[in-house]
């Protein structure tokens, strides 16, 4: 507890959400978690841990109040819980959609980015850095930084920059500097290294905004706490609408932030089944020789290891080298996963499921054409799951719509073109891109 804390315990996050204690004290989720970082970053990590405890957990200086207010006003919270009429009919079960796609920026990413940038402000930091792969976390961070008037630098692999130009443009419009990373293969992992490098040199005045529930403690708990607003709202909404808890909650999982966000307040409700849907990519087989796993199913198919500051489940070869992962959705394309999810899977509390590229694309077209919501390709995996597994589900299912698909139009064309997607519209005029 902080010395300047003058609020009653009722007002603090700890008191409000006792179900979110996992990992808060020591950053450990059973065997997972921890702080595997270079010594130079340890002080920053400790400073952040302290700030997390004071501002997030104890609401010092009214941090959480301001956070929630900004999430509401700037972000557009609460997002609705919508009954999906046609999916409900199709699966003969009540399907509810948690509409994170309606959040400012078009995905749940802002919940976290806004929380961290605001926290950096409370900590007196003067600069924000972040890495981004496809650009979703980068755009969310750039928006939050502009909103809170913080200079911001986003590291992005050069190859990703070329593939995700609209997102690069959005970050620049929001006043962020986008630094191309030219080392190695020019993708997310090099961008992460480069951001770490920047942080290691600038920790004193800079905060590194990590984009999912990964990385060293306190990131996994902190990002979870910022994203937990999803399940906090959804739980209240589903109870209000139906008078009871859902039987199932479904969310896609890359790093797992929308996933833990959607699960957090349901973990203690033992009757609620939690399904983490990972990218099955083209196949779950791995090519050890090439170091490639053509999927991103680290919960389902990964092994314990240490990556980017935490012990968790990873896609790695037998030496411990990290595999190149793959998914039709770049936002799920990550070889690791949040340590809390790894733990909850081992505990049997969360069920990991892999949905392959084909099923995800069908899910994409199904939600678009029958519900009038074009989902992100990441999110589409959750709907691929629904189609394949609906008979295993109970009578009231909440699916987290983690983001909208406007960013994915080009990819959807290309990927739909490459295969026989049964429920795709005639897209002949778009062959070759938009």
């Amino acid at each position, binding site marked *: 507890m902080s010395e300047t804390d003058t609020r009653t315990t009722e007002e603090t996050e700890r008191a409000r959400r006792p179900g979110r204690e996992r990992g808060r004290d020591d950053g450990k989720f059973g*065997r997972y978690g*921890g*702080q*595997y*970082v*270079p*010594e*130079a970053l*340890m*002080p*920053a990590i*400790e400073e952040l841990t302290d700030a997390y405890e004071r501002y997030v957990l104890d609401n010092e200086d009214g941090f959480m109040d301001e956070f929630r207010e900004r999430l509401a006003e700037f972000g557009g919270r609460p997002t609705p819980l919508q009954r999906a009429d046609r999916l409900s009919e199709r699966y003969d079960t009540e399907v509810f959609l948690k509409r994170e796609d309606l959040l400012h920026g078009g995905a749940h990413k802002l919940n976290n980015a806004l929380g961290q940038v605001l926290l950096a402000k409370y900590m007196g930091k003067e600069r924000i850095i972040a890495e981004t792969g496809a650009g979703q976390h980068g755009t969310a961070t750039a928006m939050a930084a502009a909103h809170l008037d913080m200079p911001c630098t986003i590291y992005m692999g050069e190859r990703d920059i070329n593939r995700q130009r609209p997102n690069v443009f959005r970050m620049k419009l929001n006043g962020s500097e986008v630094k191309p990373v030219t*080392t*190695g293969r020019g993708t997310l*992992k*090099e961008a*992460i*290294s*480069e951001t*770490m*490098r920047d942080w*290691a*040199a*600038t*920790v*004193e005045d800079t905060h590194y905004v990590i984009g999912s529930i990964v990385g060293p403690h306190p990131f996994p708990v902190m990002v979870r706490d910022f994203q937990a607003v999803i399940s906090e709202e959804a739980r209240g909404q589903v109870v209000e609408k139906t008078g009871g808890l859902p039987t199932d909650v479904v969310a896609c999982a890359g790093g797992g932030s929308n996933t833990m966000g959607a699960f957090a307040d349901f973990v203690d409700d033992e009757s609620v089944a939690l399904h983490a849907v990972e990218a099955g990519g083209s196949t779950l087989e791995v090519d050890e020789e090439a*170091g490639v796993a053509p999927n991103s199913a680290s919960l389902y198919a990964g*092994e*314990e*290891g*240490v*990556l*980017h*500051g935490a012990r968790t489940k*990873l896609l*790695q070869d*037998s*030496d*411990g*080298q*990290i595999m190149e992962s793959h998914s039709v959705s770049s936002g799920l394309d990550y070889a690791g996963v949040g340590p809390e999810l790894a733990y909850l899977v*081992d505990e049997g509390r969360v069920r990991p499921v892999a949905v392959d590229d084909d099923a995800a694309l069908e899910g994409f077209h199904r939600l678009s054409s029958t519900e009038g919501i074009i989902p992100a390709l990441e999110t589409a995996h959750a709907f691929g799951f629904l189609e394949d597994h609906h008979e295993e589900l109970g009578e009231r299912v909440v699916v987290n719509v983690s983001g909208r698909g406007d960013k994915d139009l080009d990819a959807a064309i290309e990927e739909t073109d490459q295969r026989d997607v049964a429920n795709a519209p005639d897209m002949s005029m778009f062959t070759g891109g938009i």
Partner: protein
Amino acid sequence: MADTGNSAAIAEAFADGPAYVPYLVVGDPDYESSKAYVEALDRGGADVIELGLPFSEPIAEGSTIQEALVRSLDAGMTPDRFFAFAAELDVEAPLVCMTYYNLIYQYGDSEARSASNASGEAASTGPRPFVERAAAAGIEGLVVPDLPAEEADPLREACDEFGLDLVFIVAPTTRADRLDRLMDRVSGYVYVQARLGTTGARDDVSDQTTESLDRLREYDVPKAVGFGISTGDHAERIVAGGADGIIVGSALVDTVAEGVAEDLSTDEVADRLEALSRELKDGAVRGHRSRTDTVESA
């Protein structure tokens, strides 16, 4: 643990005069050249040699070393080849392996691991097999940049079992309470990070170095300063400032990279590495002498 290390050779390297501790990535740009380069360091006066075993996600490195790690991986480096390399080396200086924790943690009976995974249980070989194998290959110490003291106990135990030193890095930002925790677990020498930032050759000598050395004065483990040392002059000033040794990485890796870029012969690159080593070593010796002089004249 503190000052008494497991490796007598490492202790000896720091015993009289300043230690020159060069670093190269093993297998950069290929296995055979790399061996010639490491041996050149030895000829150039290395007191301890740090051998980098490349990991695919090197979050603590500057871009120079990151590129070298990629070259080595692309040329097929693996932990087993690394150990073969170490065992084959013809050098006098004791060897320290620098790598990331996941490679240490995963090493071992891979069949046992995948069996345990299939059975639904997490693998838990832990660091012992790696350390055992390292010892057998003649490695006398480890540096693991992503392993903080808090997570280091299993590795510390394995190192003690097999007689290896475990080197920790102290950063300019390391606070007093953490310093105690680190110094409790360190052995061989402490790697004093000269400045904030990641590895990479720089030209100046940082105030942060002096401050760090001051803070470490009370601990009597040898203090080797690294990060950004690239010339004999640097080396001199740093040792004059109180360091017991200098660690040089990027400047040497740069030399290897130059060889790749300019398509130089292995011999040519080896010669340059040897010459640079001599310069650095000489600088360190000069620095040490000036310090002794100052002390004596005081």
